[in-house]
């Protein structure tokens, strides 16, 4: 593993590190809002992976230059970056926004109902409800009945 190899794959390292940070936050943090933040970091890592893969060395923004009459001038010497991953990731960003806002809206409702956004407290409340239900309706298996 030479230095060249490490530096040459910089975007992948960042992708892997960001992705792991994001996933770690989602899994390990109990605060529901922090989980959403983790999810966002996780998704941002993927956006970065896509956008960096579209980059072509020496490439410029994929817009054809026009002359004064507005006619498109196609110059075969200009190298353009690949726009397709950008377009794809625009869609993924929109999906990410929708997910984030829906998640936050759910958290608002959860806070109104449970008076907490800490996972452990919510689990405790749910477990108590489930326990009460099991007492009333007979035992069940499989966690929060």
């Amino acid at each position, binding site marked *: 593993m030479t230095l060249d190899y490490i530096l040459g794959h910089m975007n992948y390292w960042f992708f892997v590190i960001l992705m792991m940070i994001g996933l770690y936050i989602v899994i390990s943090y109990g605060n529901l809002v922090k989980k959403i933040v983790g999810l966002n970091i996780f998704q941002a890592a993927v956006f970065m992976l896509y956008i960096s893969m579209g980059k072509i060395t020496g490439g410029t*923004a994929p*817009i054809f230059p026009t002359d004064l009459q507005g006619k498109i001038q196609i110059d075969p010497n200009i190298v353009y970056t690949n726009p397709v991953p950008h377009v794809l990731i625009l869609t993924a960003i*929109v999906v990410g926004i929708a997910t984030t806002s829906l998640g*936050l*809206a759910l958290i*608002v409702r959860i806070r*109104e109902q449970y008076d907490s956004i800490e996972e452990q407290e919510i689990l405790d409340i749910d477990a108590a409800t489930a326990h009460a239900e099991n007492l009333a309706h007979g035992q069940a298996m499989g966690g929060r009945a």
Partner: protein
Amino acid sequence: MHHHLILRVITKLLVGTIILFAFYVQFHGDFSPGGGFQAGVIMAVAFILYGLVFGLNHVQRVLPPWVVHKMLALGVLIYAGTGVWNMMLGGEFLNYNIFSPLHPSHGQHSGILYVELGVGITVTGVMVAIYYAFAGRRPFIGDDDW
């Protein structure tokens, strides 16, 4: 009500400019970077900024929540409607060439314009709706808490 005078004046100056810029980005989307997504967000920023400085009530008088909700649906329908129009003209869904059979590139331009209009309306609506939803949420007071 005279707090933050500078903020209020600057906001009033900015809102118009932001909306103008939003229109610029919107209608330049088929020639240069820009388009419905970006323009929609910029447009929504104008309303959100106004709401932040003057309060939710004021901005909701300008853009009532029910209008925002209709905007969400309307934009999507404009987008899909463009596609259906193409289909009625005998092309594939969203085949803009059919708009101008002799000059396909003109057809592409007009098709993109309609579609981006739909996108812009929906994105504006969504952004403002998200802001309204979170800013306008009152803590729920149950009957027992009175």
